[in-house]
């Protein structure tokens, strides 16, 4: 019996493109996160963030900043989906829980740990905050979270069951408990990026997000080993205040993600298609 022929019909995927109709950033230190936690966006209950992880506070705040900057306060997101990647979510809270468990046993473990500090919690919180009934899914969790999230989001492009897609990314830089060379602990800054993405149409504006999934003919190709994975802070630091420019980042598993603005149409670019950042006072950076 002869071996069946290879099934690989080489098809290079096309980049997946969305129009970005809203973009929000948060870069907050612990004090600023505390203020955000105590003052949730006006549509949410006062205790919405009571048990939430810091990254969820930042992620939801970034979403509402995108909503505000795009003038979408009255928009219904009922048929939107949420794809959200948080990096090392729950590290600080679980560290404390493990300490208490060792000293005080099972009854010391908070029942809020799993509902608020696991990888599904960011997407779930965003869907609740926006009353979005499309799918919500958490992605990644480790160093390649950003790449995984864009890849997962790209997979959903063209799903006509979704009116739009929120792509939300969060992470700390540096990671909590990171030490400087002299042994002191580095103060973490929590970063969050929220993108409101819809299908590209002739009238959908000038800002686009394009994702090219990994292009390989077979696994014999060399895998590019990145010394540093793409981080949320790379995106937030690059996109803050950006207008009328294009940026491209390599993804960990191959391929790339690109933020593209049409320079020729810069003059007519709407505020919603710039990335605006907030501090707890609400002032754009």
């Amino acid at each position, binding site marked *: 019996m002869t071996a069946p022929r290879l*099934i690989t019909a080489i098809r290079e995927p096309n980049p997946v493109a969305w129009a970005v109709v809203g973009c929000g950033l948060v870069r907050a230190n612990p004090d600023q996160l505390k203020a955000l936690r105590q003052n949730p966006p006006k549509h949410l209950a006062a205790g919405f963030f009571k048990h939430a992880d810091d990254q969820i506070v930042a992620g939801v705040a970034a979403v509402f900043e995108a909503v505000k900057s795009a003038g979408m306060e009255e928009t219904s997101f009922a048929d939107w989906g949420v794809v959200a990647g948080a990096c090392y979510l729950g*590290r600080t809270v679980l560290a404390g829980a493990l300490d208490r468990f060792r000293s005080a046993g099972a009854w010391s473990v908070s029942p809020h740990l799993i509902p608020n500090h696991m990888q599904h919690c960011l997407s779930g919180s965003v869907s609740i905050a926006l009353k979005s009934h499309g799918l919500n899914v958490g992605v990644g969790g480790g160093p390649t979270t950003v790449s995984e999230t864009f890849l997962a989001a790209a997979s959903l492009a063209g799903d006509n069951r979704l009116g739009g897609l929120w792509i939300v990314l969060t992470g700390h830089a540096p990671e909590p408990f990171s030490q400087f060379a002299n042994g002191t602990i580095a103060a973490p800054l929590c970063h969050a990026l929220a993108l409101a993405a819809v299908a590209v149409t002739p009238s959908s504006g000038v800002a686009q997000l394009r994702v090219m999934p990994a292009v390989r003919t*077979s696994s014999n190709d060399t895998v590019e080993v990145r010394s540093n994975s793409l981080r949320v802070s790379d995106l937030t630091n690059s996109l803050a205040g950006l207008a009328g420019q294009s940026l491209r980042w390599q993804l960990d598993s191959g391929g790339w993600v690109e933020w593209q603005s049409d320079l020729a149409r810069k003059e007519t670019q709407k505020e919603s298609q710039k990335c605006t950042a907030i501090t707890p006072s609400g002032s754009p950076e």
Partner: protein
Amino acid sequence: VHSDNTVWITGVGACTPLGNEYDVIADALSAGKSGVRPITHFHVADHPSQIAAQIGQVPTPNRWNTHSTADAFRALDPLDQLAHFCAEQALRDSGWWERRQEIRLGIVIGLGGEWPLRWENDCHQGGQRIREPGRDTEPLVSAVQRHIGFAGPAVSLSAACASGNQALALARRWIQNGWVDICLAGACDRGVTPICLAAFGNLRALSRRNQEPEAASRPFDKDRDGFVLGEGGAMFVLERANSARRRCARVYGEIAGCGASSDAHHMVIPSPDPKPATRAIQQALAEAGVTADQLHYINAHATGTPVGDACETAALETVLGDAAPNVPVSSSKSMTGHLLSAAGGMEALVCMIAMDRGFVPPTINLHSPDVGSRLCHVCNEARDWPIRVAMSNSFGFGGCNTSLVLRAV
């Protein structure tokens, strides 16, 4: 006649509380065997729930015996062992193992708590990895890729208890998009840990029927008192139907339809409004091109919590309408416990076995079904039943609702 976008499952790798081989698992399901036992591998005296459906030691995959050492495998975190085993088994079972370098191979794994489980395991061994972020360098999905030896797209997903279904849906989409030829997809979880048991226990979500472990998981039964924690994994190989047909592969079933929605209600409590869950089920049916009365079996999410069971019953009764008394429904969690993130993978496997063997697995411990339910419960004993189209529901924290329709080939 199958369209070019038809995706079939051609490989299975599983490690479950009912066994690690397809036939063993099938026999256990057919016999209505419970995998729930007292927890013995850590101290549970101060835990409200002290029972679980556990998997014991994960078998060493062949590759680890030939290219590395069994000791190295044993040194991996428990979740890593599980994922490596299931992924390799699935790829070998499909017949693609020897040719994995020649194809565009992707991987999607549903993992609910990859890093927390690693940190917790390290902590119980006296480590402080959670406070040493520099050690957290390689995600599990990448480690599986590296050890198996392929380099396609790789993603881990978490939709809480719906993670497995989401992983299968995403992998199917990659194949349909033409991004990969073959995709490993499924879900793994090792939630039987001190912290997880305590957290769910203190949430009052777990059964405290510690003296009767095998009777503790009682979905749809009025005497239920919460779910039973489980662990395990199931990975599958997905490929286009025309590829599988060409190589005369063994086919476990077609992933005919996937649906997903969100409650947007509460992080823990399912929506009392059945519409969101109904929407996910209807999406899956529409994609599969079948109506509710054409379903031959429904594997319910049904964990054994009063509120969850009631919400799913309402959703199923809404979708099934007049067909509700005729479509057999059961919850295999009565036997396997709740595998958390891996539940969707496990229950997809249950549906494939049901289609293959021609029986409906029972809901064991179901002696007093909820009053007023119009569902056709299969209580305590398996029922011989030809099954061509099966549905598996998975609903999770964060309001994630997913539904999968599988079709016999």
